[in-house]
């Protein structure tokens, strides 16, 4: 029994002749931030989709908390404790920020087949949701429809929703994308503290954030992981420098 909460073994996925995922194995351990980096088109999104359940691998296994997740759809994986955020904000645009988070609280509490009690005055939903908005600093924007939030605020809301699920592991897909320097810095501090709550598999382009946060880094190139290691090991790895970081690094 390792302390890995999420374990990918030899995942393969092809689209026609293109091997988008070519034998990927990696794990996510308790208490860590494991960053997944790689150039555009390396297959990061395809991999995330397979972990979260929106794509089915051709072969290989994904185990979460020791259980094989094959055959479970996205909703079932989320219920088992996989909290994900999206590269492109994926919110209910007409709902207010608060109602977006309330939906996650409701999902965490169990049945959505309750037909009569109004949610609006239901403190078991509103209070935890409000608390999550406060944690990400969105409490003043609670009543604003998600569609009217700024880009940065929507990223914060994504994180609040993932938090509200009380997940066993986070799967964050480019949470820094499109944030300004201040926003990235704030979020970096926030994620730093979050790892004690649940480990994070972090897909990110912002190298400053990755180097500041990651306990381990895996480098994905053309669908395969060419190296996994600590920040220093990755910085020093000649293959990584050649394939990805280039001379500039």
């Amino acid at each position, binding site marked *: 029994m390792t302390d890995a909460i999420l374990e990918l073994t030899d995942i393969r996925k092809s689209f026609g002749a293109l091997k988008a995922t070519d034998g990927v194995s990696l794990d996510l351990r308790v208490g860590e931030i494991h960053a997944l980096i790689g150039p555009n088109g390396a297959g990061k999104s395809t991999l995330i989709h397979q972990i979260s*359940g929106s794509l089915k691998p051709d072969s290989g296994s994904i185990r979460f908390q020791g259980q094989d997740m094959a055959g479970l*759809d996205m909703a079932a994986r*989320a219920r088992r404790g996989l909290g994900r955020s999206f590269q492109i904000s994926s919110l*209910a*645009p007409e709902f207010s920020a608060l109602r977006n988070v309330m*939906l996650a609280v409701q999902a965490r509490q169990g049945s959505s*087949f309750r037909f009569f009690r109004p*949610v609006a005055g239901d403190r078991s*939903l509103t209070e935890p949701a409000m608390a999550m908005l406060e944690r990400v600093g969105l409490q003043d924007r609670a009543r604003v429809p998600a569609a009217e939030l700024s880009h940065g605020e929507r990223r914060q809301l994504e994180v609040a929703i993932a938090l509200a699920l009380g997940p066993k592991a986070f799967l964050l897909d480019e949470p820094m994308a499109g944030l300004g320097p201040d926003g990235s810095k704030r979020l970096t501090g926030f994620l730093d503290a979050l790892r004690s709550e649940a480990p994070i598999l972090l897909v990110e382009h912002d190298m400053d954030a990755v180097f500041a946060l990651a306990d381990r880094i895996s480098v994905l190139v053309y669908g395969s992981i060419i190296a996994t290691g600590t920040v220093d090991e990755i910085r020093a790895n000649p293959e990584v420098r050649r394939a990805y970081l280039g001379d500039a690094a």
Partner: protein
Amino acid sequence: MMAGLSREKTANIVLALLLLGVPLAAVAAGEPFYVTLATRIVILALAAIGLNIALGLGGLVSFGHAAFFGLGGYVAGILATHAFNGETVLFGLPSTTSMPVIWLVAVVLCGLVALPIGAISLRTSGVYFIMITLAFAQMIYYFAVSWPDYGGEDGLSLYVRNTFPGVNTAQPLPYFLVCLGVLAAAVCLFWLLRGSRFGAALEAARQNTTRLSAVGIAPFNIKLVAFVISAMVTGLAGALFADLNRFVSPSMASWQMSGELIVLIILGGKGRLFGPIAGAIVYVLFEFALGGITERWQFFLGLMLLGVVLFARGGLLGLVAGRARHD
């Protein structure tokens, strides 16, 4: 923003008062025809409220809800015809002329039929869903046409209106009040559903299915339950409609009827509590007023509808109350 909300509420109250007041005034003025017209409005609004659960809340564009409207109608027609002849229905089940029993049978039957239709149709989405629901409704339509025992294409007449305990349903006003009571109950149901956890999940499914999955709620189950509830309400309206006209025919299950139900919702304002009621009032009055002047009223209905779709996307209540809010 608050003004927008209260304007919609004001409009709703005005609509409710009109719906109750005009028929009472019509009876006082000795014009019972208008009571029948108002009953037609109430029943069509009820059918559209049913569809509004699927379409307005869940974003499920069912182009086949007339199937449930027709099924409800045939339940009333078939049970009553056998009762009139002193026979049993299939397999020795008793026939009846009691409205509450008929309603129950109509609602349960529509739920049972909607379950497989919904389960198959919801495997798809978008245009596929529209076409498949339309196709299934056409299947039920042709079944009604080709089954000669219950009148086939010619339809089935009810000799007398069915009964409701303590009410003389043969009179226009008491029957109107029965229907209005059912409509009020359906409005309450819609309001409760929309505000509930189920409603929150359903509205999220309309806006962003992936988001709903990502928080761990399976969209398929939510949508299927909504589709079934929606069909049940529309089926109940069908049973009332058969009793209103004392006649049921396959045309109740036709594609035109499915289209009309969608039109009622869009005219009034999709997803709004009183949208179907506003839509039904406008539709029936338009039909009545224009139908008196020209046989070609549907031509002008088409023009009006085209105008609403191209230029007034929030429907009539949208024009009165501004954009809908969901906070």
